[in-house]
């Protein structure tokens, strides 16, 4: 029996890069499916993924909000976003598709270092 590890996925890329978000969520949920603690941190342009007001009519794109809500459904332990990344982009933490834990930039290194496995998604 392997001991459990806690995973963190660091998402830095904006939405709508083909199937990236779908595949990211699949990998993240694969960890949750085996009941290992998994956190996700949205940083830099990654925070755009959390914007609630994507209007996709006429763009031929798939909405991400329903997909991202699976993170809550499957008990992903913590969904975090960096406060500065949101502020730089004039995004309010209240208007996101998911409730997030806000981390200050100065807290990010120690928070990441508290995990056993880190997966950077570009």
């Amino acid at each position, binding site marked *: 029996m*392997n*001991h*459990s*590890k806690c*995973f963190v996925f660091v998402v830095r890329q904006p939405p709508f890069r083909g*199937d*990236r978000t779908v*595949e990211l969520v*699949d*990998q993240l949920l*694969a*960890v949750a*499916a*085996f009941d*290992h603690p998994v956190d996700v941190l949205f940083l830099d342009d990654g925070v755009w993924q959390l914007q609630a007001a994507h209007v996709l009519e006429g763009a031929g794109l798939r909405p991400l909000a329903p997909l991202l809500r699976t993170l809550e459904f499957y008990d992903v332990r913590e969904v975090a976003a960096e406060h500065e990344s949101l502020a730089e982009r004039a995004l309010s933490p209240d208007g996101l598709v998911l409730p997030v834990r806000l981390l200050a930039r100065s807290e990010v290194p120690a928070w990441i270092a508290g995990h056993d*496995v*880190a*997966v*950077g*998604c*570009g």
Partner: protein
Amino acid sequence: MVGALIMKFVIQIDASPHEAQAANTAYQFIKAALANGHHILLVFFYYDGVCNAQVSSFAGKDDLSGRWSALAREHGLDLVLCVSAAQRRGLVSAEGKDQGLLAPGFRIGGLGQWVDACLKADRILTFTS
């Protein structure tokens, strides 16, 4: 001395060899790790990384898929393509058959294998672009 420790690695490759250097970097890293006595539990191809398994129509000796096959043969590497990423890109049929498009040494697997290998590994590295 830390450098003398033997470690078990899991390597994830997220990029196609045609558009980024990342897959080649992973290949060089794995060669060096093996030469230093480390173990590679799994090389997991995800996202566009699954394209590493495709044999190019221009295949020559520098083709990365051929180099992966040779490395797998020499060292018993487990080269695993994520089935859903490979299906999405048409490399693998809906029934999970490889359609003869994969270079020798690659096999179809799933995210469960990646999670499992991560639990057994000392180090997990992702090569992406």
